[in-house]
């Protein structure tokens, strides 16, 4: 029997010589640092969710009707009449939110362990591109059910481009293919959501992983394992602190997969809308271009960026400043490798100022989330009674916006002018034997 397999293996290898070396390079002979912790789960989990979105998405497409007249009904049809349609749709809608949870944590890991720094700048940049495409993918997916929130969400987000001076109005009509979101808009978003962007996303993910495996993974100590001490029990030339990805990390990642699926199953079966956070109630009303939902708020994963649009007031007759600030809040992350100039990667060995600033940044991000999801608009009157809500919300939101951007300014100054006192970084990972 084993003879048959190895013969088959030889047969394939003779014809595609690249296959086996590739398997070795990325699996059995990819030596990953041995000290990965919880934070290192999220990359493989993002991959899992991506695959789940593609599979559930393909099956949704089989019953979904991309037209302004038919989209809403076809989603109801999926929910009520298609065998197991509700499950497939809830998997897809829950998957979208989990995708962002996983990706945010994955990015945060990159920040705390300095994984964006030399030599992994390209890994980070490719990751940021993935994040941009993912946001576009999620936004367009959100429009597809053609509920009233889909419609108005599309209108508001597309109008962001209308604030650009001179070309704005035409740009908006070009994106919508009409004077209001309609059939043309829905169909092109469908094409992008289902075909174009998933292809781009897959390509970027392959490049992201290839770029990482070229330079090797970082780790919670921020120690350079690849160029450090050599010799482990598999090879005298391999990094001493490295272990083969397969089977060590494939098995570890399986534990993460189990946890994520457990959480996903809980949400899908017991709270598929998660109290309006994963699926918004106003989206179970069909699109109506004459009635704006009483409360327009983006899905939670867009809320921090969207809050920034709201918090920046118009001046000089234009609303473009808020839009610039919003895009700036994402694009500034691209510059991380050049803003943070500290030679030390991991937060474990960095100065106190850095730790405080990062904490403030997390608070600002969550604060903006609260503003963007209208949580502050509900909480302020509930806690403080009869006060001017708009005033206090703006004050809070603008402070959070300043702190968000302030983090990057501080980080640059702190590391550029050498104000940081770092701790000595060990030359082996701390848990080596």
């Amino acid at each position, binding site marked *: 029997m084993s003879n048959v397999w190895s013969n088959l293996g030889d047969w394939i290898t003779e014809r595609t010589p690249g296959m086996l070396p590739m398997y070795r390079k990325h699996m059995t002979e990819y030596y990953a640092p041995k000290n990965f912790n919880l934070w290192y789960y999220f990359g493989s989990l993002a991959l899992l969710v991506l695959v789940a979105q593609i599979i559930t998405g393909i099956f949704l497409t089989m019953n979904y009707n991309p037209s302004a007249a038919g989209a809403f009904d076809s989603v109801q049809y999926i929910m009520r009449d298609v065998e197991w349609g509700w499950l497939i749709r809830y998997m897809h809608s829950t998957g979208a939110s989990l995708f962002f949870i996983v990706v945010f944590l994955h990015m945060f890991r990159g920040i705390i362990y300095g994984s964006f720094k030399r030599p992994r700048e390209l890994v980070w940049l490719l990751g940021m591109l993935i994040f941009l495409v993912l946001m576009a993918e999620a936004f367009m997916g959100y429009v597809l059910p053609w509920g009233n929130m889909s419609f108005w969400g599309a209108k*508001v987000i597309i109008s962001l481009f209308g604030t650009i001076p001179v070309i704005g109005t035409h740009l908006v009509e070009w994106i919508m293919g009409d004077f209001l979101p309609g059939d043309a808009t829905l169909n*092109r978003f469908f094409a992008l959501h289902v075909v174009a962007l998933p292809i781009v996303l897959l390509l970027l993910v392959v490049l992201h992983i290839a770029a990482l495996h070229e330079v090797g993974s970082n780790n919670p100590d921020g120690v350079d394992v690849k160029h450090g001490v050599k010799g482990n029990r598999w090879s005298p030339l391999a990094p001493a602190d490295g272990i083969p990805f397969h089977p060590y990390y494939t098995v570890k990642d399986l534990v993460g997969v189990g946890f994520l699926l457990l959480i996903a199953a809980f949400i899908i079966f017991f709270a598929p809308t998660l109290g309006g956070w994963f699926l918004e109630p106003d989206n179970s009303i069909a699109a109506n271009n004459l009635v704006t939902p009483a409360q327009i708020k983006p899905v939670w994963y867009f809320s921090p960026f969207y809050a920034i649009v709201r918090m920046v*007031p118009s001046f000089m007759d234009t609303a473009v400043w808020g839009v610039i600030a919003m895009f700036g809040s994402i694009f500034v992350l691209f510059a991380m490798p050049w803003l943070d100039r500290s030679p030390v990667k991991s937060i474990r060995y960095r100065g106190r100022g850095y730790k405080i600033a990062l904490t403030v940044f997390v608070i600002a991000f969550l604060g903006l989330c609260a503003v963007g999801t209208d949580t502050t608009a509900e909480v302020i009157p509930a806690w403080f009674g009869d006060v001017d809500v708009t005033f206090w919300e703006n004050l809070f939101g603008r402070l959070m916006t300043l702190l968000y951007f302030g983090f990057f300014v501080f980080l640059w100054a702190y590391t550029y002018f050498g104000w940081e006192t770092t701790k000595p970084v060990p030359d082996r990972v701390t848990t080596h034997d």
Partner: protein
Amino acid sequence: MADEVVDHGRRRFLTVTTAAVGGIGVVAAAVPFVESWQPSARARAAGAPVTQSLKKIEPGQQLIVAWRSLPIFIVNRTPQQLATLPKLNPRLVDPNSDVGQQPAYAKNETRSIKPQWLVMIGICTHLGCVPDYKGKIEPEPFDPNWQGGFYCPCHHSHYDIAGRVYKNMPAPKNMEIPAYHFIDDTTVQIGVDPKGAA
């Protein structure tokens, strides 16, 4: 082959011209794809004027009609509502409607042809939501001193009863007044200027 002399200048010239011609071809081929996103002939054609009778709109009431799929607000404004307009000037961005958000015949205190009737495109100038009509002069959760007007649910811009935007709001401009005219005392047509006005 081996002893042939390579003319590098010629080779570079051919490489560059091939790349340039190919590049122009790619750009030209992209044009139809980019242009295919423009509003189609059908979408552009669906924009005829709309006629609306005002008879059934009670004082203080708002009616929304669709024109080019845009919500058109028609409000029968009461004398009390009209009286708030001059008082609000200091709280507004553009009290005199200097920004071109209305035809010349509606550039006046009430932003209308007849003071009583407001005819306006009900689209927030921030990011295009449809503001709610909050016509009553009474305290509102968002403004204890509310003078009646429109409130945008999206990012909370406030407008007065003539669609003029308050200061310090996300929205930069007053709401737009469409071309319209009165066919007779109780009928308006939206999308067509009055006779004589350009």
